[in-house]
């Protein structure tokens, strides 16, 4: 039986923990709203971009831009792992890292080499131990802006053009809702043009300025930028969402534990009082007798 004092100390420490987890939850909830707004705000841009890309790439020879052309002997790949910088957010980063790890193992036979680019600290730490990281960017999420995404995109494109790798895949947590994020794989390069939905309806005569191929060549790098920006935004939002849920359940667990400990404490106190009473009564009896 632990002493009264030690139980009391435990209760105090669990209470402290609960205070912290509660505060973290509040902070995440507040940040989540902002992040969510950003995700929604960026959506129209991304949608319009792929609409135009779909229309443009429909009737253009695939050799007009190296970014769209499939390389015949693709044997080196780049995997971009987009994770968050901080832990304490449930399985958010762990699931992502596991999926990335699986990808590398499964596709080992298809490629002679899989390079890894880690965005975010957690993914970097994990992949560094397992497979080694080619390039990494950490601590970009807290002050995320479009320029950062553009620079990363440029780096990826440069490496691709220098034939450091022949295919680029990205793995990230898609933000479905506050409660659920899903690990998603996507191919960044070569660009697979999004199929335009109503292309059969009427192929319209467009005036292009400059010509179609040139426009497309200009648009593709921007498309990559937007994709990167989008995944980063979704990661930020997902990170806060996951942390919020994780901290919520942590606070609940702490409350439950405090309840249990209080019960034990009260029982121990009661037992001690009873014991003392018995001692007094029996002492009195013996004096009387």
């Amino acid at each position, binding site marked *: 039986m632990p002493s009264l004092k030690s139980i009391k100390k435990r209760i105090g420490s669990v209470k402290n923990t609960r205070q912290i987890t509660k505060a973290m939850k509040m902070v995440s909830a507040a940040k989540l709203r902002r992040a969510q707004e950003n995700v929604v*705000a960026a959506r*129209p841009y991304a949608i319009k971009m792929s609409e*135009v890309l779909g229309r443009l790439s429909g009737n253009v020879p695939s050799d007009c831009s190296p970014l769209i052309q499939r390389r015949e002997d693709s044997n080196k790949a780049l995997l971009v792992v987009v994770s968050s910088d901080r832990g304490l957010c449930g399985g958010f980063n762990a699931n992502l890292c596991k999926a990335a790890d699986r990808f590398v193992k499964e596709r080992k036979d298809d490629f002679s080499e899989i390079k890894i680019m880690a965005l975010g600290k957690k993914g970097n730490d994990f992949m560094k131990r397992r497979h080694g990281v080619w390039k990494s960017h950490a601590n970009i999420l807290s002050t995320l802006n479009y320029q950062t995404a553009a620079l990363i995109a440029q780096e990826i494109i440069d490496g691709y053009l220098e034939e450091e790798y022949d295919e680029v895949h990205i793995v990230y947590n898609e933000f479905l809702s506050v409660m659920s994020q899903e690990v998603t794989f996507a191919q960044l390069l070569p660009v697979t043009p999004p199929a335009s939905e109503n292309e059969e309806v009427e192929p319209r005569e*467009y*005036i*292009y*300025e*400059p010509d179609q191929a040139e*426009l497309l060549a200009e648009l593709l790098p921007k498309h990559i930028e937007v994709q990167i920006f989008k995944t980063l935004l979704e990661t930020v939002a997902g990170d806060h969402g996951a942390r919020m849920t994780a901290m919520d359940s942590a606070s609940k667990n702490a409350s439950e534990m405090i309840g249990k400990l209080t019960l034990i404490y009260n029982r121990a106190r009661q037992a001690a009082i009873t014991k003392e009473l018995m001692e007094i009564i029996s002492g009195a009896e013996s004096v009387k007798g």
Partner: protein
Amino acid sequence: MAEKLKLELVTPYKKVLSEEVDEISATGKLGEFGVLPGHAPFLSSLKIGEFCYKQDGVLHSMAVSWGYFEVEDDKATVLVQTAERADEIDLERAKAALGRAEDMLKKLDPEDKQFKIYEAALDRAIIRMQVAGKAVRK
């Protein structure tokens, strides 16, 4: 003409404009162009430059950076990386940026990778000041 153009201007951060306008003019890669209602389907990339639209007789102007412009069925869509209304521009900051870019350009070799970046910064600053200047005159 009674008809109007539906203009939508989006950046990665937000939808900036969604309005009915009478006339649009912008700087394309091959030069300036204007669009009136009833324009044929048209797609062009935009340079760093001025973007104007006329609404109820008032001319609004904005400073935009790289993007593209599309018009179809009197619906104009503009995707740009940044767009600032004349009254949003911080003239002091633009001037400072101009000075910085000029200094860097003097130092750098035109072959340098950085040269292009600063050239773009210079263009942006100049356009910002131009557009902001118009707001003041009004």
